[in-house]
């Protein structure tokens, strides 16, 4: 659990982060979204004290983050950044082993942890251990960057635009991997991004920042349905907010008994995909497929009703 209480950072008279308070639960993914200069990165960097706040406190699991020297605090918190920051003169294995080595793990434990992480990120250990960073593709470098951040099994992982440099297809895959890994280890993740799509896709809750202030901190559906300010509404996208809302829930939410014809849709597909398919094929209802069997249908009427502003 991370408790941020009235944190403020002033740079040369400018309030980069202005009296921000929020509580992040254990095992939660919180995305911080805002335009550049909104203070989102500064907020993130104050959690592991890469930036010291001007005023306010941050508690991690009830302990003030200033109780430990900065470098010891940072060894206990995962950190992944845009551009990955891999050390170009060190092999993949040495890069991943950075924090375990700083913590003085023995060699055997480090080696087995490195191999475990490589396998977790779908990189064959025997093939990748000895490679140098410049011999990797962008997607592979990104995975090594996250593997390195997770190496010492931190309870908290801070990520600053970790997928910013990836092309859309690789980015989608990397986001899926992150969701899967977070489920597995129940890591608390704070992820900074400038893209609302990414914030909605990954965040259990979203913190929207502008000019150093926290405008709204809410679950994606709440944010889209009831934006706190015009700025949040703009960021959430007025034009396609109906579809954004639909994209948050799976088809199974609107499953009803009954018949429908044509190509079935998966129960875990999003409502947005279902509506799109219904409109495209001109059907009033789609059969729903789960575990290889048709289990019912979803109707266009209900999909459209669900896309309206919640009361």
């Amino acid at each position, binding site marked *: 659990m991370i408790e941020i209480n009235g944190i403020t950072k002033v740079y040369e008279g400018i309030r980069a982060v202005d009296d921000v308070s929020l509580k992040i639960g254990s095992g939660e993914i919180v995305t911080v979204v805002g335009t550049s200069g909104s203070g989102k990165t500064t907020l993130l960097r104050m959690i*592991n004290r*890469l930036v010291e706040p001007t005023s306010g406190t941050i508690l991690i699991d009830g302990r003030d983050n200033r109780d430990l020297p900065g*470098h*010891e*605090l*940072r*060894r*206990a918190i995962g*950190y992944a*950044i*845009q*551009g*990955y*920051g*891999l*050390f*170009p*003169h060190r092999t993949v294995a040495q890069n991943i082993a*950075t*924090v375990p080595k*700083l913590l003085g793990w023995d060699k055997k434990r480090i080696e087995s942890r490195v191999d475990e992480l490589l396998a977790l990120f779908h990189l064959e250990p025997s093939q990748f251990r000895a490679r*140098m960073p*410049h*011999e990797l593709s962008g997607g592979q470098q990104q995975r090594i*960057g996250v593997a*390195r*951040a997770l190496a010492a099994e931190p309870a908290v992982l*801070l990520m600053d635009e970790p997928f910013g440099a990836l092309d859309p297809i690789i980015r989608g895959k990397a986001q899926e991997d992150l969701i899967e890994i977070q489920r597995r280890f129940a890591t608390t993740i704070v992820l900074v991004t400038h893209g609302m799509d990414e914030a909605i896709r990954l965040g259990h809750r979203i913190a929207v920042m502008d000019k150093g202030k926290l405008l709204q901190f809410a679950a994606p559906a709440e944010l889209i349905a009831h934006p706190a300010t015009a700025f949040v509404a703009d960021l959430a996208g007025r034009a396609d907010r109906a579809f954004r809302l639909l994209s948050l829930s799976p088809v199974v939410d609107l499953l009803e008994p009954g018949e429908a014809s044509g190509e079935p849709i998966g129960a875990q597909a999003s409502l947005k995909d279902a509506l799109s398919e219904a409109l495209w094929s001109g059907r009033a209802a789609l059969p729903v497929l789960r575990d290889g069997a048709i289990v019912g249908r979803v109707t266009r009427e209900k999909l459209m009703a669900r896309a309206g502003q919640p009361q």
Partner: protein
Amino acid sequence: MSAGFDLQATTRRGAGLDRLGVLLAAIVAAGLALQPFCLFRANRIVAAKPVGLLSALPPLESQIVLGLIVVASVLLLLRTPSPLRLSVSVLTLVLLAFAIGRAGVYLTPSSNTYARVAPGGGFWFAAFAFAIALADAAVRLRMPPLGRLALLALIGGALWLFLWSGACDALSILREYANRADVFWREARVHLFLAAGSLAAAAVVGIPLGILCVRVRPLRAALLNSLNILQTIPSMALFGLLIAPLAWIGAHVPGASAIGIAGIGIAPAFVALFAYSLLPMVSNTVAGLESVPVQARDAARGMGMTARQRFMEIELPLAFPVILTGIRIVLVQNLGLAVLAGLIGGGGFGTFVFQGISQTATDLVLLGALPTVALAFAAAIVLDAAVEMTRPMTSASARKSKSLFERHDE
């Protein structure tokens, strides 16, 4: 590689002439046709009598040598594979060395200790052309650093063996050497001490100064600008400027004159070389540290490395190839500049150069100049290889992709 080359050679438009080869063959032809192969002097300082290649050796030998040189030039002229060009260049250089050695013996009347035979323009032109061809072939082969070091060792070893065998002992430059063997090696040690010692001192002072410049911004502009100004002082003027203060130190500081500090001699030479070395050391240290990727620095800090760990494990290793490039620049520069120490009684190979100039004895000048050039050349090759080996980005695969890229616009 060779398959690719053949393909290229056959698809290239026009006759299969190598552009550099044309120039080199022209130099060889001009040298042999218009310049004497060697120079004969009845004694050390009288005017030289030029001797062409065909009269410098016994008739049959001279024709064979000429024929081989012509064949070698034609091979360079045509578009031939790089390994062939490399071997042709090496073999021709060996042939030229033997020929000039033989000419010395052939032209010197027996029991005449005054007559001198020196290589002439023709020899130097040809040697220069084939040395360039050798370097060019080595570059075209894209030899890995260890390969280049091996080639250097091979050439150095061959040269040493050749000189040691006595095949060239009749040549004037080696006669000058024979008269001064003890002095030669003493001056060689002084020369190396001046060049390498001032480099070491500059590294010990300059690298920490560079680190300081990166950390203390205001210092940076001030220090780099003053070193820049220092660099623009002509070396002769700097020697002059150093005479007064060093003479004063030698006279007034106890023990200073005992270790050789005086207005002239080795001390001002050492100080001047040290001063010229500082700018490259400091500026390369600054450039190296600034070339460390921002993200790598940020990641190192974000993962909990202490300032000392970040510096020793990330920043310094990543800056090292650039710092080593500075060391390379300084060493090659110092090996050349150290010749000027000869002017102010500082010793080194410059002693022979300036003695030779004052006596108009070209051979003596060469006795100082040739080892200097060879040393600077060898130092450049060794340190370039070291720089390449320490750079993480120039691993085998990076080099491969680079060469593929370059081959298109070759």
